[in-house]
């Protein structure tokens, strides 16, 4: 029986939004699903060299953001608050035995997940092919659609 297929479009570059594509991709690969992730717009930040474990989370505009004490939005805009929120989130992930984004990216590559970077958004945002981690291919909408048309699962994150 041919393997099932899944594609994920990863369009966000914040710490919290980098997790779902990589968790689903690695798990799907472990379940014998052929996976392709298409990184576009801010999702490119996940696959920039040396950047996977530098992604941040913003305390602003997210009422569900867990904080040790309730913090008014105006305070959350102050310098250092983003770093604090990011450090807090990372320590929570770590405490619960969750892999880092860098580890998941490595596991995805190891499991044969196909990674495609969107050339158009790279051009727009001044990202060179040499800025992207090894093992990534470059393409556009048609590249994704070709795989997506034959996939049972297609997600936009």
């Amino acid at each position, binding site marked *: 029986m041919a393997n099932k297929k899944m594609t994920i479009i990863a369009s966000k570059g914040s710490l919290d939004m980098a997790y779902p594509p990589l968790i689903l991709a*690695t798990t799907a690969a*472990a379940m014998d699903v052929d996976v392709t992730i298409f990184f576009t717009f801010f999702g490119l930040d996940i696959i920039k060299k040396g950047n996977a474990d530098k992604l941040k989370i913003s305390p602003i505009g997210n009422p569900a953001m867990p904080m040790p004490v309730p913090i008014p939005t105006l305070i959350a805009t102050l310098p250092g608050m983003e770093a604090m929120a990011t450090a807090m989130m990372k320590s929570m992930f770590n405490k619960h035995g969750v892999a880092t984004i860098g580890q998941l990216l490595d596991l995805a590559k190891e499991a044969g997940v196909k990674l495609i970077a969107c050339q158009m958004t790279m051009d727009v945002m001044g990202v060179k092919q040499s800025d992207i981690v090894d093992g990534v291919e470059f393409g556009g909408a048609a590249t994704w659609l070709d795989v997506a048309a034959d996939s049972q699962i297609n997600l936009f994150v």
Partner: protein
Amino acid sequence: MSDIKFDQVLDAKGMSCPLPILKTKKAVEALSKDQVLKVEATDAGSKNDMASWAKRTGNEILKVEEASGTFTFYIKKTS
């Protein structure tokens, strides 16, 4: 204690989704057909996750034990 014989043990205690599944996949791949992997996990989601994983990959869960927050799975490699 179970009377099921196993060939390898995977300690996935303290790991969260998706690591127990990813490690299980790797460990089962390293086995020969009909060998049994014993996996211990504390992730409360792993009971359902492991069943879904086994169903999808065609491997067989011989037994699941649950004791004081630890799930123990006996997984037979079927191919």
